[in-house]
C-alpha cells in the first residue's frame, strides 16, 4: 500500500495562482493570512449561447438587422428583449430575448443570429495559509511559505477550507455520528474517529462545518449523501458545503494512532485543509496543514 505522509514540523510552500493573467496583490516578504487575496483577474465566461433571432421573430435572416434593439457589445439581462418584430399594424408582436445575463458578443446580419456570452467571471485566489510571501509569479500569483505540521489523507472531497481544529470524539476508534456534530462546530474543522455516518455528513452540511477529518466513510453512505456515484478518483470540485478528508480508506477504519495524536496535539489551532485528490500517476492526496 502506498504510504500516506505525515510531518510533525516541516516547511510548507504553496503556489497560489489564478488560471489567467491578472493582478498580483502581494510582494515578497509580505505577511499573509489565510483570507488575504494574493491575486485577482477576470476570465471569459464559458457560458455562450447562439440565438436564432430570425426564428424567434418569424422573419427571414436578412430582415433581422432592422429589428434589433441591441447591438454587438451591448450588455443584456436575462429575458431582456433584444429584437422585436411587429406585424399587422402592431397587432402581432414577436420578440427575441436573451437567455442569460451577459453581453452580445456578435451579431450576423446575413444569418440573423447573435451570440450572447455571460458576464466575465471574477477570479481571485487567497493565501489559504498564514505565512510569508517568498516568491511572486508575474501576473498570476505568489508562493506562500509557512512552518507547519502536515497530515495527508487517503481520499478527500471538496476544496480548500480553514477553521479551528476541534475534536468530536475521544478516541480514534469511535464513529462520528450526527449527535456529535453540534451548532458550535460552525466554521470549524471537526475530527472524528473510525467512520462518519451519513446522518453526520448531513448534520455537518446543515451546521456549516468547515471540514470533517475522519478515518473512514462507508462508500454506500457517501454515494447516498452525494446523490451520485463517484467515478474516477479526481476530486476537489464537489460543493456540498464542507470538505471531507478520509485518512485511512472506505469503510470503518479507526484513524491511525500517529495521525490522531498529531491532530490531538494541535487541537484548538488553525487548520488549513484541502480535499483535492488525484489518484493517478501524479498522485495528489488531500492535506491538513496546521501552521505552527
Amino acid at each position: 500500500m502506498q504510504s500516506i505522509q505525515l510531518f510533525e514540523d516541516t516547511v510548507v510552500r504553496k503556489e497560489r495562482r489564478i488560471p489567467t493573467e491578472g493582478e498580483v496583490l502581494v510582494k515578497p516578504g509580505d505577511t499573509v493570512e489565510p483570507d488575504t487575496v494574493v491575486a485577482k483577474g477576470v476570465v471569459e465566461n464559458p457560458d455562450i449561447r447562439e440565438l436564432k433571432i430570425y426564428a424567434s421573430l418569424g422573419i427571414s435572416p436578412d430582415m433581422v438587422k432592422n429589428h434589433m434593439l441591441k447591438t454587438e457589445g451591448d450588455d443584456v439581462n436575462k429575458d431582456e428583449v433584444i429584437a422585436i418584430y411587429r406585424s399587422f399594424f402592431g397587432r402581432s408582436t414577436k420578440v427575441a430575448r436573451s437567455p442569460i445575463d451577459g453581453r452580445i458578443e456578435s451579431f450576423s446580419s446575413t444569418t440573423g443570429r447573435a451570440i450572447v456570452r455571460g458576464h466575465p467571471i471574477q477570479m481571485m485566489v487567497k493565501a489559504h495559509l498564514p505565512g510569508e510571501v517568498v516568491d511572486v509569479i508575474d501576473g498570476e500569483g505568489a508562493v506562500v511559505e509557512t512552518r507547519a505540521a502536515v497530515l495527508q489523507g487517503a481520499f478527500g472531497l471538496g476544496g480548500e477550507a480553514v477553521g479551528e481544529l476541534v475534536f468530536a470524539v475521544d478516541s480514534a476508534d469511535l464513529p462520528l455520528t450526527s449527535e456529535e456534530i453540534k451548532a458550535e462546530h460552525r466554521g470549524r474543522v471537526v475530527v472524528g474517529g473510525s467512520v462518519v455516518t451519513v446522518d453526520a455528513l448531513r448534520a455537518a452540511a446543515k451546521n456549516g462545518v468547515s471540514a470533517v477529518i475522519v478515518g473512514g466513510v462507508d462508500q454506500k453512505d457517501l454515494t447516498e449523501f452525494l446523490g451520485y456515484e463517484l467515478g474516477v478518483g479526481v476530486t476537489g470540485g464537489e460543493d456540498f458545503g464542507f470538505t471531507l478528508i478520509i485518512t485511512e480508506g472506505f469503510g470503518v477504519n479507526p484513524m491511525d494512532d500517529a495521525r490522531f495524536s498529531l491532530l490531538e496535539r494541535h487541537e484548538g489551532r488553525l487548520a488549513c485543509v484541502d480535499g483535492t485528490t488525484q489518484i493517478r500517476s501524479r498522485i495528489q492526496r488531500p492535506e491538513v496543514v496546521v501552521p505552527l
Partner: protein
Amino acid sequence: MVVGGVIGIISGESAQRAALGAGALLMDQFSKDDRRPYFEKIARLRSLKPDIMLMAGGTDGGAVAQVLEMAGLVNTADVKPRFGREYQLPFIYAGNVEIRDQVKKVLGEEHYATRMVENVRPVISKENLGPAREGIYDAYMEHVIVHSPGYDELIRWSEEPLLPTQAAVGKILYAYAEARAMNLIGVDVGGETTDVYSVFNGIFNRSLNADIGITYGVMNIVKETGLGNVMRWLPPEMDERDIRNTVGNMMIHEYVTLSPEQKTVQAAVAREAVRLGLEKHKAIASRLKGVLVGRTISDIFKQALEQTIINMFKAQLVVGKGWVFRDQPALESAMILVDSLEPMGVTEIMVDRSSIMPHLGNLLGVNHDAALQILVEESLSNLATCVAPMGKAGEGEEAVTVHMTMDGSEMVESVKVGDTRLVPLGVDEVAEATFTPHRRLDLGAGRGKQVKKQIHGGEVGLILDARGRPLNRFRKTPKAPT
C-alpha cells in the same frame, strides 16, 4: 489525439480507427455533421491540447467544400500542442488527395506542422489505414516522444524507432494471428484503461476504454456498468457495503498483494471491464459505413444488418493481458475471459503473464521469427480450450458430448444444457476431439453437426460451457468430473 472528418460515421470513423490502431488515446472526434455548434467545437478544440491531430474527409476527387470548412475550423481554433506553445502541433491530413494544396493553404504555415498521407477512404467502399498509421508513428517520433523525459537516453539504447506501447502490442498480436492464420481477440486490462485488440479476416482493430481499469479506474467500472452487474459475478453472501468499500479502497490504495475478498472483487470488476471494452470494440470494429449493401430475402427478416465485424463464433483465440491475469488463479483467469467475451464454438484461451508483449512488438522489426518464438515460449500461457454451443435446447438435456483420443486412450465427457464442465487436459497434452452438439445446438458447423478438432491442453484444461449465449447464468465455475 484528436481526429476529424466530414461525415462522422464515414471519414470520422476511419480516422478514429487509424488513430486507435496506432496506439493513440483518443480525446475527441470532430466532424462537419456533429451536432455541436461551431463555437463549441472551437472552444473544445482549444481546450484539448492534443499531441497529434488527424483529419480525414472526402474520397479522392470527392468532397471539397466540406473538407476545407473542417480545415478552416482547425485553423480558427489554433489548437495548441500539449508540450507548450513553442512547438507546432503535428497535423496529419488523410483525406481527399486532390485538395491537399488547398487544405495546406487554409491551415497556413504558422500553427501546424502539416503532413500529407494517403486518404483513409480513397473510395467509399475501401478503407486504407496503413499510411495514416505510419504518419501518426512518424509524427509521434518527430514531435511528441522527443519531448518526453528520458527520451534522449532511451533512444541511444535502441536501434529501432520507439513505438507507443499499445501500437507494439497490436503489432505482435497481428503478427501472431497472421502466422497462425486465425482470428483473435486480445484484451489488456490495465489500472486506468482497458484496451481491446482484434484481428478478424486479416483486419486489425484496437479500441480503448479510458478510465476503465482495475486500480485507478475501478470505481468508474461500477459507475459505468452499475453495481448490480458487478454483484452478479460475486457470491450472493457478499454484502453490498463490503463490495463498495473494497472497490473504493482498491482505487485509493495501491495494494501490492490482494486479500481473498479483494481478489474476488477484482475478478468481478475485471469481467465488467472486459465486457464494456468489448461493447465499445464492436462499435469501432464495424463494417464500412456509407457503402451500399445488397440485402437478400433472409436479411429482410433480420432486425438490422450486422454492424460489427466481431463474430465470437469465428474467434479461434482469446488472449488476456494485464495484472488481473497474474493475480488470479488460472481457472479464474480463464473464466474472466469466458464470462466477459462469451466465446462461441471452439476457442483457445491464453494469457500473457510476462508483460513482454510490447517489447516483442518492437522486436518484430528486427527479427520477426524470434519475436514470434519468444511470444509462444515465454509470453503466452495456454490456459484452456473453451467449447460453447449456440442455440436453445431443453434444460438438463445433453448439450455437447466430447470424444477425446490421446496416446491411444479414449475419454468421453458431456455437459448438460445450463451447466459447465471442466475436462482435464494438461499443458503439453494434445488430443484429437470430436464434439457432438445437441440437435438444436451449433458449434460452428451447423445445428447438431459434429466438429472435429485437434485441441491443446492448458493449465485449466477443456472447458465445456453450455450456459448459452448471451449469458444469463453468472456464478458458474466449472468443476472437473469426480
